[in-house]
């Protein structure tokens, strides 16, 4: 286990270095002058020089990279070009909203998707295929359509929920539902496939041959074996929810990181864009690492298969 953890941590550190470099390069890949495009065509040249100096873009590239890494180590992400607020503050404030929303969506999605998938796998015909078909259809629903449709149905026609905003917990219901639908659909499909794969294993046949009750076989043997590999799937979905709620947050005016990213793109606020991308990628890497380590702790085959 120790060797596995060390190797996995090294891989994580290497990937994180890559993420830092790529995010740094992002602003340097821009065709033309980033400072000019931030300030617009009508900008005074003195302002352009001043902003370039403030962002450190007039320094040699090696020096820029050094400062960038140093600042990140100090958790200083600079200031927003648009609002002049510290980027770290903007990002951490919006992250809290995103985290709450992602947790809500993930809980709804997992609590509905996993039981549905297991049920569909264990009941072969009828309900089983109906659930699979529904999951296939739900997986194909575009979020940018689901969001306005749920608004129309639940908020406008029935008047049950607020259309958008973030003042009360009720405001979270629509965005959380929107994000939970694809999450649940994906988990239903993955759970069904995993359970189907385990049910036909020899050890399950042996347990049945020994005369164990079917409920016992399923609850104590099939499900644990099927669900452990789903951990990494759930971590991946969580990462996607933290980073990929861009559309949902924009539609429902939920002040999370996705919405921050979209408004920063509209304002050409590159320090904030850079920070959003960096934070999302780091979360993604961290979650994957956590899922892998947990998976290895629960399943000896994972850590032994590595060496």
């Amino acid at each position: 286990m120790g060797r596995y953890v060390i190797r996995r941590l090294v891989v994580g550190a290497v990937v994180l270095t890559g993420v830092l470099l790529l995010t740094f390069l992002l602003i340097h890949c821009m065709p033309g002058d980033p400072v000019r495009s931030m300030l617009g065509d009508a900008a005074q040249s003195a302002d352009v020089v001043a902003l370039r100096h403030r962002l450190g873009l007039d320094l040699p590239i090696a020096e820029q990279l050094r400062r960038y890494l140093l600042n990140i180590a100090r958790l200083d992400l600079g200031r927003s070009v648009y609002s002049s607020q510290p980027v770290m503050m903007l990002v951490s404030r919006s992250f809290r909203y995103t985290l709450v929303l992602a947790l809500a969506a993930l809980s709804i999605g997992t609590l509905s998707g996993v039981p549905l998938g297991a049920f569909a796998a264990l009941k072969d015909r009828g309900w089983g295929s109906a659930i699979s078909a529904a999951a296939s259809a739900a997986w194909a629903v575009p979020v940018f359509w689901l969001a306005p449709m749920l608004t129309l149905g639940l908020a406008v026609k029935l008047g049950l929920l607020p259309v958008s905003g973030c003042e009360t917990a009720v405001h979270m219901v629509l965005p959380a539902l929107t994000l939970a639908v694809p999450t649940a659909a994906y988990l239903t499909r993955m759970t069904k496939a995993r359970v189907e794969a385990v049910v036909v294993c020899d050890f399950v046949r042996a347990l049945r041959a020994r005369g164990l009750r079917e409920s016992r076989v399923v609850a104590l043997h099939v499900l644990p074996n099927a669900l452990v590999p789903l951990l990494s799937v759930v971590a991946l979905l969580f990462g996607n929810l933290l980073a990929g709620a861009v559309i949902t947050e924009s539609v429902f005016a939920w002040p999370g990181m996705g919405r921050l990213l979209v408004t920063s793109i509209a304002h050409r606020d590159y320090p904030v864009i850079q920070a959003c991308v960096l934070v999302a990628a780091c979360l993604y890497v961290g979650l994957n690492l956590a899922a892998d380590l947990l998976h290895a702790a629960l399943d000896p085959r994972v850590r032994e298969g590595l060496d």
Partner: protein
Amino acid sequence: MGSSLTSRPASGDDAARGWQRRRHGHSDRSTSAVDARLGAGLLLLALPAVLTLYSMLLPVDSYTAASLPERLSGPDWRHPLGTDELGRDVLRRISVGARVSLVLSVSVVLIAGLAGLLVGSTAGYGGGAVDHTAVFLVDTFLSFPPMLLALALVAVLGTGLTQLFVGLAISTWPGYARIARSLVVALRGRGFVEALRALGASNTRIIFRHLLPHIAGPMLVQAMLDVPAVLLMEGGMSFLGLGVQPPDPSWGAMIDEGRRHLVDDPALVVVPGAAVLLTVLGLNLLGEALAARMDPRRA
């Protein structure tokens, strides 16, 4: 470091994972169920296909010309699906949107697939420093959620069809590189490759004539499953105003424009959304059927 290629899931990994799962032999779906998926998928895809064909018959600009007196009119014989807020024919815009979305997502997948295939197979076959560099690159790109990377690239490159294409392709290629690499690594040590080397075959010949046919199946499955994923990303970005730019129609942008009339004319949101849903569902079913068909153990 190479181990991370197999131990860490990535969003683009479905085909490889499904592949492995089926190879271990437990999919009990009968052939008829696969055929049903194939049939349903093809049937659903008839819709975007017909729309695309129709869009090619349209006179140029007929789908961008505004006609304010006819704005937000319901369906009639001249406009079977009604008109939008500028009086433009919804059916025509949906058809052109189908062409834009399909051509874009298929070409993104083709280019990204080829790039990934090239990088992945070279790295897997070459090994050593080349492999380490490629794995580092691929792992780095895969650390970014794909949609976010595409958005960030468009933010930096600017909006437009070319930039959208580049953004989507850059966030899609690493998935293919990873799959191609792991497949080639698995093949590299096999007897037939050694025999080819002993016979004096060049590396290029071994890769292109002998390894590619082996990995083409899983790569194709992944590509089929990625087309709908890219289509959804394109739709989402166009919805946010960062994809296909007006006056060109796109399903995502049409849904966004229609949102302003959600209450008085919900059809403007419902219709393009249904087009996306049915197309993505059709592509998914087709991809799944293909995945099941191409599994060597089930043939």
